[in-house]
């Protein structure tokens, strides 16, 4: 226990002194996680709407498949993105491998099913409550969709924050396509992974505390946003 207490003390010192390396790693982590969440939102909220409002055969299976992909292993997402952006891969010419953009791309792949699945669920919930009312008020299909989206606003936000949580906490994909390069692609989770391997307990715990603090912020936000609706 003595060693653990000591590690926590050093961790606190690193945080309070705003250690430049720790700050840099935290900054990159936030930038990468926020970017991937935003991009996933732009791409997949509209797609989720499309899937929800459209009628087509196999829709139930598609939604089931999307929800199954919540469990997509992060290292597998990393491996797929690696193969695509590696110099020999189809997007190799873009030279994305071992850059922050590569991590963002992998996180987008990883959280795509989460955004799609949760947004579809949110729309279903909102639609059940609201569509009758809206239709009896005489709105057209486009106005109905807009109204339902507005009704599901907080659930949409919760889905985005959940995606952010998955992006910020995963290590496998970030390690594989980012390469954990000091000062370039080192995120909180890959730094923790390296630190644990090197026996640098105190630094690893410090980074862990920061990561948990960010995660806590996210979950508190979700709680705050959803409480208002229930």
């Amino acid at each position, binding site marked *: 226990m003595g060693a653990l207490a000591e590690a926590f003390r050093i961790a606190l010192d690193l945080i309070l002194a705003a250690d430049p390396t720790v*700050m*840099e790693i935290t*900054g*990159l982590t*936030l*930038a*990468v996680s*926020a*970017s*991937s969440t*935003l*991009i996933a*939102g*732009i791409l997949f*909220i509209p797609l989720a709407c499309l899937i929800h409002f459209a009628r087509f055969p196999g829709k139930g299976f598609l939604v089931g498949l999307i929800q199954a992909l919540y469990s997509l292993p992060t290292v597998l997402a990393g491996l797929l993105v690696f193969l695509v952006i*590696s*110099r*020999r891969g189809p997007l*190799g010419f873009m*030279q994305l*491998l*071992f850059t*922050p*953009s590569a991590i*963002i791309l992998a996180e987008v792949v990883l959280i795509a099913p989460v955004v799609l699945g949760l947004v579809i669920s949110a729309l279903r919930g909102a639609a059940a409550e609201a569509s009758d009312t809206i239709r009896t008020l005489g709105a057209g299909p486009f106005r109905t969709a*807009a109204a339902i989206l507005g009704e599901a*606003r907080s659930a949409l936000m919760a889905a985005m924050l959940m995606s952010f949580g998955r992006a910020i906490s995963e290590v496998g994909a970030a390690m594989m396509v980012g*390469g*954990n*390069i*000091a*000062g*370039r692609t080192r995120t909180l989770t890959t730094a923790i992974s390296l630190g*644990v*391997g*090197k*026996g640098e307990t105190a630094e690893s715990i410090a980074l862990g505390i920061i990561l948990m603090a960010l995660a806590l912020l996210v979950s508190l936000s979700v709680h705050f946003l959803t409480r208002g609706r229930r």
Partner: protein
Amino acid sequence: MLARFTAILLTASTALLAACGEQPAPATTAPDSAAVDTAAAPTAYPPLESQQRLLVATTTSLYDTGLWAYMEPMFEERYGVELDILYAGTGKALEWGARGDVDVVVVHDRAREDQFIADGYGLSRTPFAYNFFVLVGPPEDPAALAGMTPEAAFAKLYQDATTPFISRGDESGTHAKEQRIWAAAGLDYETVRSSGDWYVEAAAGMGPTLNMADEMRAYALCDIATFLAYQGDVDLEIIVGEGGVMQNVYAVIPLSAARDPEMAQNMVTFLTSPEIQNLIGSYGVEEWGRQLFTPCAGQDL
């Protein structure tokens, strides 16, 4: 640094604003991507062209000692390039090299290095430093291996089949050396590997493997530099030391497919220059009380 991360975030937010008009985003910036980009440029570092980066894949044993962190700024200053160091076992480093994803590899497994060059992936192999592997284990030496040659010690571990041995099991240079020592001891590696619970495959880097050996009171093969760096944290000692078969040679290989062949060649020049050779020879003496690497530029090892 922070400025660059802000730039990454800005670029992404800009894309959001540009692509998503109906999204109720907390937009204070102009929803025009070009305008925001120009506004951000003066405060942020311009994104580096890929030609200005040199990607070097190095073995974990060199990385964990801090040698690269020490040499990196010198190289960057001398050649005006951003040096990005990736660490991985020799197997993975060579795989990255074969795929053309890095410009230079620095590894330690002669057989695979020669093959790598024969396959046309690498231009040349230049040894620049060596040290030794050691067999480490609990200080009480439960298998009574002290004083033996590495081959005899390995043979006894296999015959006893009681004291655990932790293998890297990750196709690293250290793992390759281990396989070579089993062969030198007259044993078939695959037979050894499947001969019982005493043989444990960590499938991990050197550090985690040492930690596992410490927890399980087991033996492990380790390069001397990593072991010295870990000595304070694990209750393990060198049981069988340096010997002919234990020599550990690090070599630098610029890749045929390097994006900037001249810059890749600069790494060879740099590592074998008298100044850096001196630094490598004296690196770590202050911290660990002994030399970690012996410079060997010009020798055929």
